[in-house]
């Protein structure tokens, strides 16, 4: 709140990570010192990848707790609330990585309020590190401000870094890190004076992102298997593997809508990406508007001369015309298949197509389901597709589904001065495949409810995570095997897994890890079911939806299928008012992103003011 009659006396962010599974609790308490009731806002940014699991408000000794319900059922309540003029909808998109949870309540004179929000996520390893991001913006000096994180990694912590975008040289010594072999403790607790922008003024320095980055030790080729309370998780990212050569076709949209900055940034990024190709890689370039062009009709070895020639070609790419995504991808597949047939590149190499586009197909085949079908049929599981969706107008869901149907993934590239860096960053993530056709095997008679255990590739700096439920507590013969294709020969490792004694590993801790592995398994299973809901056959979609919903409710995760219903306290002026916290889908985020940041409104439906001024005239 900006209202100085409301004193925020405590803000605490407590994050506990056990084997990459992060459980974060944000607690904030405020006191209304005024003689009249005041509206108090609680706004928290949480990572898009996280699921809210709990929310409560404690007001005048009474606790109001959120309840996770099936989205459709919650929506009915919501619609009732909207129809009676009440507000609803607590979660909005916020920037590139986060979404914002916000709620406001009226607090009586001289009363306290405490908000507690809990969310959970499985940290993903990218470019060799995990990242925990907390956005803090208390808006006023806080008596007790604290960010504290405890990380427990049985594999051992290889490195850890903690910093804040708002942390000046004076505040830097306040970031305390204690890292022992398997445990890290990070804390940041500035006093009120240390939070001040300047001596004697009320402004706070605390406004920005607090980041913790770390990685774990990777000694074992088999990876790390943890078994806790009837669930197991296998983290697979073996050390010291040579990279597998790749065949890559870059498919670049040069239609009219790419004009200006986007085209310029694409050329810039491509020049760097081409430089980063390894000499044993083969590559091709397809550019398209409504006309499809190629740099060369077949894949070319990434020798210095060829790369230099390709860079010359990239510099000539000019924007023009309509968008024929189908034709361009068909051409790329054709180049790749011809190469395979001619056996030009190494047999063990990995094949991938990287599509960069900013728009909807409007030339050639323009039906997106038809394009998805054509691409899937043409690729036939022989190569992966990675899509980069550039800008706000791109149909991201279409690209996302198409990528996942072809064992790849999509990434949104946000328009901005750093778009070139985003493009290069994405390429780096997939530039170095280490293994292909990775199969992880566990004894059929001992496990069930396994998450995906076949992966098309393992990339350098990433990690494969498989989790499952044990059907038998006797672990005498829990044999784990991994089969994959390496650059020269097949990669085969086998090993025996055993349950870890967490209370022995962390004897001084209370037994806090009871259900972490189970929740990690549930989180991963739900994420994969949600993915199947988009990409599977009609029957698979139905089953995946039903199962994901059931698990979301069972584990109290706010996913795209569930909502958290929060009932606000009744006041003199207003009736009891249900509020809804949803998990946004990418489409909803995209829409919100176009409209800009969240602004609390005085009256009426929620509306997000655009980030730049808008002037218009229209009818009603």
């Amino acid at each position, binding site marked *: 709140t900006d209202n100085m009659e409301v004193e925020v006396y405590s803000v605490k962010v407590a994050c506990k990570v056990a084997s990459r599974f992060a459980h974060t609790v944000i607690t904030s308490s405020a006191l209304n010192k005024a003689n009249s009731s005041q509206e108090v806002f609680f706004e928290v940014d949480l990572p898009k990848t996280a699921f809210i699991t709990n929310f409560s408000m404690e007001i005048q000794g009474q606790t109001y707790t959120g309840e996770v319900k099936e989205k459709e059922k919650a929506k009915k309540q919501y619609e009732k609330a909207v129809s009676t003029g009440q507000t609803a909808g607590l979660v909005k998109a916020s920037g590139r990585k986060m979404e914002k949870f916000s709620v406001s309540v009226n607090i009586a004179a001289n009363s306290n309020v405490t908000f507690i929000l809990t969310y959970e996520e499985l940290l993903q390893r990218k470019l060799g590190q995990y990242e925990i991001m907390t956005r803090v913006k208390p808006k006023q000096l806080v008596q007790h401000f604290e960010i504290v994180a405890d990380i427990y990694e049985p594999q051992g912590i290889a490195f850890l870094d903690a910093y804040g975008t708002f942390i000046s040289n004076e505040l830097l010594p306040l970031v305390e890190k204690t890292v022992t072999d398997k445990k890290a403790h990070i804390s940041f607790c500035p006093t009120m004076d240390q939070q001040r922008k300047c001596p004697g003024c009320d402004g706070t320095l605390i406004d920005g992102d607090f980041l913790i980055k770390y990685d774990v030790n990777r000694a074992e080729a088999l990876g790390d298997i943890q078994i806790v309370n009837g669930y197991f998780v296998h983290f697979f990212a073996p050390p010291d593997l040579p990279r597998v050569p790749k065949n890559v076709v870059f498919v670049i949209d040069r239609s009219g809508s790419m004009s200006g900055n986007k085209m310029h940034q694409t050329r810039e990024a491509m020049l760097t990406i081409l430089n980063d190709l390894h000499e044993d890689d083969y590559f091709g370039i397809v550019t398209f508007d409504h006309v499809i062009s190629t740099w060369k009709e077949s894949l070319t070895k990434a020798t210095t001369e060829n790369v230099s020639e390709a860079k010359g070609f990239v510099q000539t790419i000019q924007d023009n015309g309509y968008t024929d995504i189908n034709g361009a991808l068909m051409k790329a597949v054709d180049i790749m298949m011809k190469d395979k047939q001619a056996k030009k590149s190494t047999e063990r190499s990995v094949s991938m197509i990287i599509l960069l586009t900013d728009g909807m197909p409007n030339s050639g085949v323009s039906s997106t389901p038809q394009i998805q079908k054509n691409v899937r049929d043409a690729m036939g599981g022989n190569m992966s597709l990675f899509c980069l969706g550039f800008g706000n107008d791109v149909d991201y869901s279409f690209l996302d589904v198409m990528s996942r149907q072809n064992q790849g993934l999509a990434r949104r590239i946000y328009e901005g001065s750093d778009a070139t860096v985003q493009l290069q960053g994405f390429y780096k993530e997939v530039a170095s495949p280490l293994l292909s056709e990775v199969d992880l095997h566990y004894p059929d008679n001992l496990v069930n409810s396994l998450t995906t255990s076949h992966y098309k590739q393992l990339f350098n700096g990433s990690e494969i995570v498989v989790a499952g439920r044990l059907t038998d507590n006797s672990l005498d013969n829990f044999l784990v095997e991994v089969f994959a294709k390496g650059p020269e020969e097949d990669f085969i490792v086998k090993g025996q897994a055993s349950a870890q004694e967490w209370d022995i590993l962390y004897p001084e801790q209370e037994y806090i890890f009871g259900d972490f592995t189970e929740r990690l398994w549930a989180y991963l299973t739900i994420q994969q079911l949600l993915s199947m809901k988009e990409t599977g056959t009609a029957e698979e979609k139905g089953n995946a939806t039903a199962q994901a919903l059931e698990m979301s409710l069972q584990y109290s995760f706010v996913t795209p299928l569930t909502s958290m219903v929060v009932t606000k306290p009744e006041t003199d002026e207003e009736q009891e008012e249900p509020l809804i916290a949803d998990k946004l889908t990418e489409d909803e985020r995209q829409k919100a992103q176009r409209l800009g940041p969240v602004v609390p409104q005085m009256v009426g439906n929620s509306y997000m003011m655009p980030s730049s001024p808008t002037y218009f*005239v229209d009818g009603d």
Partner: protein
Amino acid sequence: PHFMIELPEQEDALCFNIDDRPGTIFNLVRDQLAGILVNGQTIGDKKVAPDGKVNTYFGRFGIVHQGLGVRLEVTTHDITVSQDGKQAKLLWSDTASLKGANLDLQVTKDRSLTVTLRDSVRFVVILHKVWKQHPYHQDYLGFYTLDSHLLSPSVHGLLGQFYHGVQFEVRDMRPGEDPEKPDATMLVKGQELTVTRGWQRDFRWDVKNGENVPCWFIHSNGNGLIDGNHTDYIMSGLF
């Protein structure tokens, strides 16, 4: 037509209606330095609705960029582009794009036209299709400025005068006639106006339903907010 001025820095928006006889041509944007002119002609309903309300909408826009020699006429039927003596006609019934050295047009079938005049201005015209058999209403257009920061400080017109912002202050909020729409006093351009909290709709993302934008409504054709009064913006021709 409903005018909307959204000011994210002030986290607020202003809105007003301009009502006049159907067929009136209004100047929306005029920047003599940049050579930009946008005029709009209103249309009415097919016939007066039973409630007796006379609604007007924009049915035709004329856009000129003198420096680039571009002239654009957008009606509810089609889009005519003239440049350097050459003329092209695009239909709302096709998705099409036209790309020139200084001009980009992107028509999304039956929905919107995005126009980029290089190094000058970017805007969208939205087509509102009304059921052909509707007894009263007919198709009409909306005009949305997407980027105007390159226009000169002297830019004017019913929309253009706000392109470089407007300072205002709202105080003394009180119950209005409608319990959902409180009144308040607005201090703007040295005057005190009674304004009403309300909504108008932004149709850019959802052309059918629009998105409600809360705003302070200035009564009497925007009197007090706009420079002069609305009749000062009436033009004799579309170009």
